[in-house]
């Protein structure tokens, strides 16, 4: 059973009187997919207990980074804290793409968006992205993961694992956006892989508090410029060594922190 926040996926798959969905699908509004599915799941628990439903049903909510990191964060946090048996999947393309590339709190430092443009005085977004995956991990829910659309085995393994675990789960999947990022339309897989290879978007999971890095480029870890130079949204940054250095440092810091957490949480 699927609940979907307002966004590209919802508007392109449910244009009345048609629907793409072969499973029950419910859309409520932009900011409340998590609260809505907690109502659906709450109804399921009640009716199941009363013997009115025989089937075992899995619940998954989809939202973009706008509906998840920003306007829907409270709703998500509440649903996770209440412990509903559901998976929340954030399709993170790092800006409000459905409405035309406006900044979100998932937008990376320096990126051009229409509400934080690469102007003559201020060059793109001035702030770092919010670390939502860690915010979710701080809810101490059974399963939290980050993955990318370009690593099918990594992504499917995480979704399958999440579905097998009772309670609230959160998966943050990195999803390049062709018009929003400005790259060749054949390169979506490559774009997300590059984010993992530069460690700008590490693939990892936190299962019952234990960190596990599921893709480690090791010695092949690429500099962030390899990723930045492929997209129009970062074009203005490439000559700005200070900002590049800042991005590299933030990337390294998070990566080193993850390595530390993996080691610290898996001690025998």
């Amino acid at each position: 059973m699927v609940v979907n926040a307002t966004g590209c996926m919802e508007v392109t798959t449910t244009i009345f009187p048609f629907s793409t969905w072969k499973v029950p699908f419910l859309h409520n509004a932009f900011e409340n997919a998590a609260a809505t599915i907690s109502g659906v799941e709450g109804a399921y628990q009640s009716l199941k207990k009363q013997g009115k439903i025989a089937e075992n049903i899995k619940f998954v909510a989809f939202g973009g980074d706008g509906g998840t990191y920003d306007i829907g964060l409270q709703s998500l946090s509440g649903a996770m804290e209440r412990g509903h048996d559901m998976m929340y999947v954030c399709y993170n393309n790092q800006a409000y793409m459905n409405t035309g590339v406006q900044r979100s709190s998932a937008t990376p430092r320096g990126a051009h968006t229409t509400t934080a443009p690469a102007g003559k005085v201020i060059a793109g977004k001035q702030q770092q992205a919010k670390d939502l995956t860690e915010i979710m991990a701080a809810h101490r829910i059974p399963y939290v993961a980050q993955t990318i659309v370009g690593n099918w085995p990594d992504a499917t393994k995480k979704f399958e694992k999440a579905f097998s675990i009772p309670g609230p789960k959160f998966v943050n999947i990195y999803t390049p956006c062709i018009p929003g990022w400005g790259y060749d339309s054949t390169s979506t897989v490559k774009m997300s892989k590059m984010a993992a290879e530069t460690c700008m978007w590490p693939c990892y999971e936190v299962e019952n508090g234990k960190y596990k890095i599921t893709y480690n480029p090791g010695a092949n870890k690429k500099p962030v410029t390899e990723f930045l130079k492929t997209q129009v949204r970062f074009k203005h940054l490439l000559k700005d060594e200070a900002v590049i250095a800042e991005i590299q440092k933030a990337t390294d810091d998070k990566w080193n922190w993850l390595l530390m957490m993996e080691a610290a949480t898996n001690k025998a």
Partner: protein
Amino acid sequence: MEKTIVAKTGNEAMAEAMRQINPDVCAAYPISPATEILQIFAGFVHDGKVKTNLIAVESEHSAMSASMGSAAAGARTMTATSSQGLMLMHEVLFIAAGMRLPIVMADVNRAVSAPINIHCDHSDTMAQVNSGWIQIFSENSQEAYDTMIQAVRIAEHKDVMLPTMVTTDGFIISHGMERLEMYPDAEVTKFIGDYKGPYNVLDIKNPITAGSIVLTDYYLEFRKANRVAMANAKQVILDVGREFGKVFGREYGLIDTYKCEDADFIVVCMGSTAGTTKSVVDELRAEGVKAGLLKIRVYRPFPAQEIAAALGKAKAVAVLDRAESLSNQAGPVATEIKSGLFDAGVRVPFASYIYGLGGREIFKEDIRKVYTDLKNLAEGKAVIETAKYIGLKE
């Protein structure tokens, strides 16, 4: 039927109604003066007196969002709120109505910020009049209790399928202890029947897509369906009110008229003030003044024709609004009634008042003064300013 006579506040009465209705799901967030409803009901849940899954959400926006999800999942769903909470629900109220989900909500009328104030007026509820919810006001605890039970039947009727809010006046009713006749649990269960929702997103064998995007080609038809449902609600409310009378001994309609048949001067109001006004009518009648009261019980759907018919023969009419519309016209109720009178071809000397905002007390003397104003108005001795404040500190 053996009725139990108890002393209950409005909040206790509404919580008791919720216990007897025994919904599958209640998703709610506490707010004064409605908090007690949730507290008392949570006690019922935790003591195993109801089968309800209580979802203690983190905000009223999520309360209505979860209620929407629950009702779409084939579960009888209830909630309770007030004031800022109702305002925070505003967006999702329209969605619940547009998606034809028969959620029943206890709504305790309270003033809206700013300035922040916790006391009664109808501003919160009036801000939701275009949301597509059925709105029923209560004069006292008994009406609140009775109407909660009826609301389930009204909301879930196949010709209606609309969410319904039942209101009490904050503190005045919600915290006022009154005599309450309660009916046996089994009789309430029998009266409300089993839940039959409009569709079910838990039916995985017959998957549906609910909450689609509807563009220029069909949006209007969806809105029309809501209009038809609201129009149908009128008869359903009357039918359910009549059946309730047969079963439980207290019949309900869209409006209540008190000594209006031969009245020269009629005051129109809603909620707890109707009780005060009845007492004034009795006093005036004893003094030979032909006074009457028209209490509006159902505000959505608006009983315009019924009100026009009841006011048509009066020499003068006053409408008491417990909310401001800040439109430079009368308050919301008075404006709505004027529109109905125009359509009915009724032209009657008309005065509008605004009272009780933020819990400002209204006394019998204030209402007496309104009847005096009406007499002077009818005799051409006075002009009453539009939306005149009662009890304003000058």
